């Protein structure tokens, strides 16, 4: 009796789908990194090799950006290698009060006043962490609520305990 579903066919289709989905994710990450590069250029931010950039979208996931801001407050005295671009905010005053003047004055916080991040097509609701190596932004970490390792990886990279 011919089976309605051919097991070999299903297995083959599944494998093909898995391969193409991996390629798709890699392609998506590559496209996102390119958008990051374009928007950083527009913002006129210069980062050295081994620096890290965190993009915080304040019109996205509130628990996520709150965590990112908290991280900024906790770590700003420990490193000069971590830079923040903050976008999607409604009030600069609120942001300044929330982060504290010291954090603001340190010079590693960049405000995306003209919305270049969004214009570049970066519409993430979650903080994006990208690492600059060999002159390029390599690798992306999306610090959503499920990615519990994003901040520990970042701290390890920056040698912050």
């Amino acid at each position: 009796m011919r089976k309605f579903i051919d097991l070999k066919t299903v297995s083959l289709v599944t494998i093909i789908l898995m391969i193409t989905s991996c390629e798709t994710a890699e392609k998506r990450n590559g496209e996102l990194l390119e958008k990051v590069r374009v928007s950083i250029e527009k913002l006129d931010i210069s980062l050295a090799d081994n620096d890290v950039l965190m993009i915080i979208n304040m019109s996205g996931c509130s628990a996520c950006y709150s965590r990112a801001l908290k991280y900024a407050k906790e770590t700003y005295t420990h490193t000069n290698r971590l830079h923040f671009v903050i976008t999607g905010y409604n009030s600069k005053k609120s942001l300044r009060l929330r982060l504290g003047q010291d954090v603001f004055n340190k010079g590693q916080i960049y405000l995306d006043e003209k919305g270049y991040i969004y214009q570049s097509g970066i519409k993430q609701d979650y903080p994006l962490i990208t690492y600059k190596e060999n002159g390029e932004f390599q690798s992306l970490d999306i610090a959503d609520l499920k990615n519990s390792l994003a901040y520990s990886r970042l701290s390890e990279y920056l040698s912050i305990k």
Partner: protein
Amino acid sequence: MFKKSLFTIVLIAFLQSCGTKNIADSAFKKDESDFDEKITLSRDYSYTLYLDSTTTPESTNLQYIVSDDNETLAYWNKVDASIVYFNLKDGRIVKKQPIPRTGPNANGTSNFFILTPDSIFTTDYSNLKFINGQSEILAVFPTSNPGEFKHTPDPYIWNCSPMFHTQGHVYFQVYVGGVFDQNNMAKVNLTTSELEYFSEYPDFYQKAYWRGGFEFMDFTFNEKERMVIQSYSADHYLRSIKLDNLGKVNKHFAGVSTFGTIKPPRMSMTEPGHEKDEKKFKLQPSFGPVFYDQYNEVYYRFAYDPITEPEFESNDPKRSKVKPVRIIILDKSLTKVGETRIDRFKYELNMTFVSKKGLCLKRINEANEDIVQFDVFIPSPIR
């Protein structure tokens, strides 16, 4: 044989998809959308608040209070967790009430309802905390009963979904993101601490997955009629519920005749395409908060036109995000009597409140963040 069966199935599915109304769509009856335009809104006045160095120009909870001819605006200040009281006559701060986050009166609230200066309701996750004017906790009541639900909702309280008190009960919205098949309001009996749930999403919400911006409900309270009036983001109608009959819901057309049927972004949570939910929300009309003006005995409801596809694709931070807005005006019997367009990019509509002068809309002012200005729109008959 298999090919013939597959062809038949595909043909039936194709025919069914053509020209059939989806039962999960949000539609309205054309004849209900006709109305006699009797009232318009005109801007006539403004309030200015002068902020101190630690008060921000954005707030998620406002309450207008009139007492002995004094007009006060109570204002939640997130950055230092305080209730700021402004005298609306001169715009100055008259009192700042900090809410402690630690210690014996620790309170994690970000909202309030002021009954009197010494009787204030706040919610701190699963508790309703009743405090005095020094933020000391006087009583605590539960705000959730996990036993009733598959997904326990939390209090969802902010400026356009306020808490209110009447006859020994406190009422508020409860919410779980993306869940539309359970109650969405609750009341706490302050004598017995009993918690009761009521109100459901409209039928069409329960038949699809209304996300991307459609999931929200705002409401207002008419104290004289003892009635809650709800505005769902995808609903052309307002829904009214009388407090003495919580099981009965009446609906009242409060939409726009040119809006057309609104379609859900997806039919279920598991259906792929979540990344397009927000686009489907933005490219369709929707509705926002409703306010009852007890002084003029009218209701105001925000209605949003869709963003165009070119605007959405432009990635312009304003045009691709902010929908054009109009205000629907209804009389005390919830009959539509007017419709006024307002400037698309001028106001921060989440900070709207009603005063005895009219509907107060907060002006966006990026240049000076030490003042907050409200333009007051007054309803007036069309001659």
